[in-house]
């Protein structure tokens, strides 16, 4: 039989509805009394996430609390949905920093390109997904809020460990 049409061979006569129904009720009874349930009591117990889950962004900081971002402009360039807004500036020592750095988490598709492209390992995605807000404006994270996040960074793919063991 060629593969494009699948015809299931089922007996269409000779079956008894009542006995078939009883067999089915046996199956449901087994599940009814089975104490192993698949329900996860979500807010109380949470999924164990992979270290490579790509979630809410987080900005790495120096010891004194300044963001590590040097305002190079690579992340807004690589961002496929244009959700990063960056205005770089330069301080009196000639060091560049981000005067404005905003990520619209609502628009973000969590591809992780910004984290991969960052030359100073400043912007990261994080292992975190519970970010509900009452307004859309709250979804735009500014630099201060990005620095405040304290969930773990998303792990990147390691060429020496391709399966992320």
């Amino acid at each position, binding site marked *: 039989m*060629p593969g494009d*049409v699948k015809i299931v061979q089922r007996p269409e006569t000779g*079956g*008894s509805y009542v*006995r078939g*129904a009883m067999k089915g009720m046996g199956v449901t009874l087994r*599940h009814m009394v089975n104490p192993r349930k698949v329900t996860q009591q979500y807010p109380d117990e949470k999924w164990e996430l992979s270290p490579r889950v790509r979630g809410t962004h987080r900005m790495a900081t120096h010891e004194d609390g300044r963001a590590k971002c040097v305002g190079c402009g690579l992340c807004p360039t690589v961002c496929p949905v244009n959700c990063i807004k960056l205005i770089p500036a330069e301080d009196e020592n000639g060091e560049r920093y981000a005067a404005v750095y905003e990520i619209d988490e609502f628009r973000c598709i969590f591809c992780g390109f910004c984290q991969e492209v960052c030359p100073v390992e400043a912007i990261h995605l994080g292992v975190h997904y519970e970010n509900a807000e009452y307004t859309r404006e709250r979804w735009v994270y500014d630099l201060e809020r990005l620095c405040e996040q304290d969930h773990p960074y998303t792990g990147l793919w390691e060429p020496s460990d391709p399966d992320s063991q």
Partner: protein
Amino acid sequence: MDPVRGTAYVLFTVGKAVVFFTVLFLIVALATMVERKVAGFIQDRSGPNRVGPWGLFQVVADGIKNLLKEETMPEQAVRPFFLLAPAIAMVPATILFAVIPFASPLPTQWGLVEMIVADAPIGFLWVLAIGSLGVYGVVMAGWASGSKYAFLGGLRGSAQMVSYEVALALSLVPLILLTGEVRVPELVAMQQGFSEGPATLSMWMILPLLMGAFFFFISALAETNRLPFDLPEAEAELVTGYHTEYSAMKFSMFMLGEFFHIITVAALVTVFFLGGWDIPFWAGDNIRVLSDGTVIGDPTWWKTLLTAGVFAVKMGLIILLFVWIRWTLPRFRYDQLMDLGWKFLLEAVTVYILLIALAVLVIEGAGIEMGPLYAAILFGLNAVLAVLVFFVLDRGVLIKGAGYRARLEERKRVLERHEAKHEGEVA
């Protein structure tokens, strides 16, 4: 002790009505909970469990939600009937309970109080008459909504409920053939063993009338519009059928009505076939009030409580069976439903009545007194009939695809076409 009379009788009747219907509403609330919990368990989930202990207060939360929701009124709806329909869907199921005896009589200082709201001498006919009123709620809701889905649901509902009404009523005729009484407490007494008074079967009716109970249960499933007979609200085709246009508390009334029907049917099965409030293998609860006021047996208050508990347990098991069936069996196709009702159930029940009548004639002609032996002979007949129905008649006859032959032809054509097309490739 004599049964209560006069003013005390009136007061006790009012008291019983109030208490019983309050308890009934609690049972309905519990039944909705059982439905959702069992549905969860069958699907390997844990069911609602966040509100209160084991999620018991979920019912309260849902009730409050439905009271606070917006009541919608479709522009095309016929207002008086649209408002009346939810009440009509619910009320008959509740007032049916008036003739259900739910415990052994309670002795008080004013006399013996029978645990039944209204011991009507035509109780059995009351059940059949009021039980068929539920269809008006469905039809009225479907027609008055001014929506084609609701209308189709109402049409289906009326056709289905009227069809199965016939089999439902006929499947109870053998019961009357055996008892010769239409007082419902007398049907319960019939299933107990008494040393004095009129002779009884001393056996739950489900044994001597096994197939009758089976037919009654199937027709009752159809009457309550539960799966596998829930075509009036087939959500895949009709949105939700006759109550599509209803919201908030009016919708809740339909849901309550459905659960009331389930509980009613559970009570009827219990009273007619499972001995009512009778506790098996115990002579202490054999209490009988004859229609002339004579009391046989020894009523006490703790026996009343115990038998009420037993009645609740039996009802609970039937409700569980209803829920269990709902979450196991898929819905019938409409022609299968009509075939089952008119082409199988009606004939089977009619033949069954004739057989039971014949058997009663033969047994009584042989001079056998009504009692365990009488019932055992009937049970033997029913066992034979059960084997016949489940193993011979049912084989591909009860539920069969209507276009089955056409499908076979179609399949043959498809196969031939494919073989012709791919003949060269395989080689």
